[in-house]
């Protein structure tokens, strides 16, 4: 098992936290993980991204030129990362924010209106969780239960209020991803 995941969007969309959640879940599932954010003046442009590697083997580079999966939360990110995803890899789009679909035929695309889905629970910021849930379901790299457990742990103390909505977003993402997958 080995996934190299890029999560990319604007600042404020919870990109970094989504990646950390995946990484924590990976650890909890007994896997090797690395997480690395964009850093330094790159942040300036208003974009944010991070790379997460989860693997059953020791991990080499925490950076990836060709992700096996990408969570794309805005159009500039789509432009940048669509061509980079590995053949056979997964493109996960928030279709509320990224209207254009992929033109590639060698990748799996799952487009979910994540922001809208999350908005249904009154928490559009939880769109990142929708995507994480979807990624987990689509790749199986970490278990949904683990994600939920870790999310409780991480949000537990300070953000208990938003926990329920985030959990629902996670689950909803997982379900939607499964639905949109060719069986």
């Amino acid at each position, binding site marked *: 098992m080995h996934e190299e995941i890029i999560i990319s969007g604007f600042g404020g969309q919870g990109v970094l936290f989504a990646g950390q959640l995946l990484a924590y879940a990976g650890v909890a599932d007994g896997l090797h993980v690395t997480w690395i954010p964009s850093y330094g003046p790159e942040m300036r442009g208003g974009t944010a991204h991070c790379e997460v590697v989860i693997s059953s083997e020791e991990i080499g580079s925490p950076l990836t030129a060709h992700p096996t999966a990408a969570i794309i939360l805005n159009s*500039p990110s789509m432009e940048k990362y669509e061509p980079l995803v590995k053949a056979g890899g997964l493109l996960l789009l928030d279709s509320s924010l990224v209207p254009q679909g992929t033109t590639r035929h060698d990748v799996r695309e799952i487009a979910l209106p994540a922001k809208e889905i999350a908005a249904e629970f009154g928490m559009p910021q939880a769109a990142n969780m929708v995507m994480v849930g979807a990624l987990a379901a689509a790749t199986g790299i970490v278990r949904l239960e683990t994600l939920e457990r870790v999310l409780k742990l991480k949000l537990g103390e300070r953000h208990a209020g938003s926990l329920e909505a985030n959990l629902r977003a996670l689950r909803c993402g997982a379900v939607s991803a499964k639905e949109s997958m060719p069986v």
Partner: protein
Amino acid sequence: MRGTITIDENRCKGCELCTAVCPKHLIHMSGSFSMRGYHPAVLQDPELACTGCLLCSTICPDSAITVYREGRAK
């Protein structure tokens, strides 16, 4: 004096500073994203109240605003 402004959507970063300095409150933020991911400022001046006073262009950090005035060539 009558004036108006144009705002370069590609330069505007949505900082909202111009909205605050406009004495006539003519500048508002767009609801939609620009290509760079910002909500750009737009002039809403149905009553042609803009005087071309230069306050918005002076405060704009991104030189996104061009200011015009009636009859007064630069």
